[in-house]
């Protein structure tokens, strides 16, 4: 567990901190995510993806639940993550990170901000539409195509 912590804690903490903006709350999420893995390692199905990706998604969801002060909505065992790059290795993670940042940088500003509001602030499409004054359908599509654009970076 200590090894897993040393490998993935910086990823988990960075995501929690980016969402919550508070080091104490981010430390709590970090603790909670690793305790969940400890209590129920079988929740992560290794045949269906890699641990780093799974932890990234679980962390984001927990942090958003914390931000919106709601109870966790999905069972962690139901979260199956399918992703190309293997995030176990630091070098590969750094390479992937660079590609992602490139993809985000290349997105139209409105799309990137819709995606980031949905992902890091946990705003719903309705809230984003209200904030930006744009049609709901446009926001929905921006979020989806924004997410899908990320995988395209790795499809070559």
């Amino acid at each position: 567990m200590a090894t897993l912590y040393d490998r993935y804690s910086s990823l988990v903490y960075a995501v929690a901190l980016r969402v919550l903006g508070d080091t104490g709350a981010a430390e709590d999420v970090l603790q909670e995510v690793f305790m969940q893995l400890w209590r129920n390692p079988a929740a992560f199905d290794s045949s269906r993806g890699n641990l780093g990706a799974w932890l990234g998604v679980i962390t984001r969801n927990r942090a958003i639940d914390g931000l919106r002060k709601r109870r966790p909505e999905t069972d962690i065992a139901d979260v199956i993550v399918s992703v190309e790059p293997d995030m176990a290795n630091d070098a590969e993670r750094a390479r992937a990170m660079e590609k992602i940042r490139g993809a985000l940088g290349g997105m139209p500003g409105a799309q990137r901000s819709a995606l980031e509001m949905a992902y890091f602030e946990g705003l719903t499409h309705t809230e984003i539409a209200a904030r930006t004054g744009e049609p709901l359908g446009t926001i929905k599509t921006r979020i989806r195509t924004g997410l899908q654009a990320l995988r395209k970076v790795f499809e070559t």
Partner: protein
Amino acid sequence: MSAHEQFADDLALFALGALQGDERLTLEKHLEGCSSCRRELERLRGDMALLALSASGPAPPQRSRERLLKAIAKEPRTQKTLARAQSLWTFLPWLATAAVLLVAAFFWQQSDRLAQQVARLRDQSAQQQAQLEQAREVVSTLTSTDAMRVTLVAAQTLPQPQGKAIYVRNRSSLIFLAGNMPPLPPQKAYELWLIPTKGAPIPAGVFKPDARGSATVIEPPLPAGVEAKTFAITVEPEQGSSTPTMPIVMMGVGE
């Protein structure tokens, strides 16, 4: 994909946890029966994982690590005896057979009585039908994939050593977590073995449990693409061995 376009946007919102109310229920219902949408949901979560990578910042403080390790030490992983839950599966055919035998015995007795009680034939057959239904229900509960299976063990038993190996053959990737491992004699270590379907056991990492009996083996070097039949643990000299020294102290087959 094209048949499911009406769900495409909703799937992304669902992955992000933004979908609520009726829209969410409708989509959840659709996902139950639609493997291509489930697959797209998994990929969207993959995209979310990629987005997680775009976050970067300072490393967590050292106290977080200590806090986690302290919490883990306080909570040995004994409640979830996965291996035992699994072993229930091996009993399933027996339980099913036993249920069938019971039903058969019941029928035999009934038919004997029926010969003498022709007048009550109709009632009896209705009763048999009900019993058969019940037996079917028993078997379907035993074999249902969405059944919750809980193994209860005596509360006072000592924590059992337990290991979990997670192996992905096509990436030759192996993660092993163990808890409650008994302490070793001096100059000895545990060695994990991958026992392939063909050929000799392959060393898959030497480890020593910490003071609390926990240990991990992360991504040991392994030959490519070996199909694993079993994982086993032996006690070896500290530097490890190339062939296992009997006896095997722990062993498990894939789920």
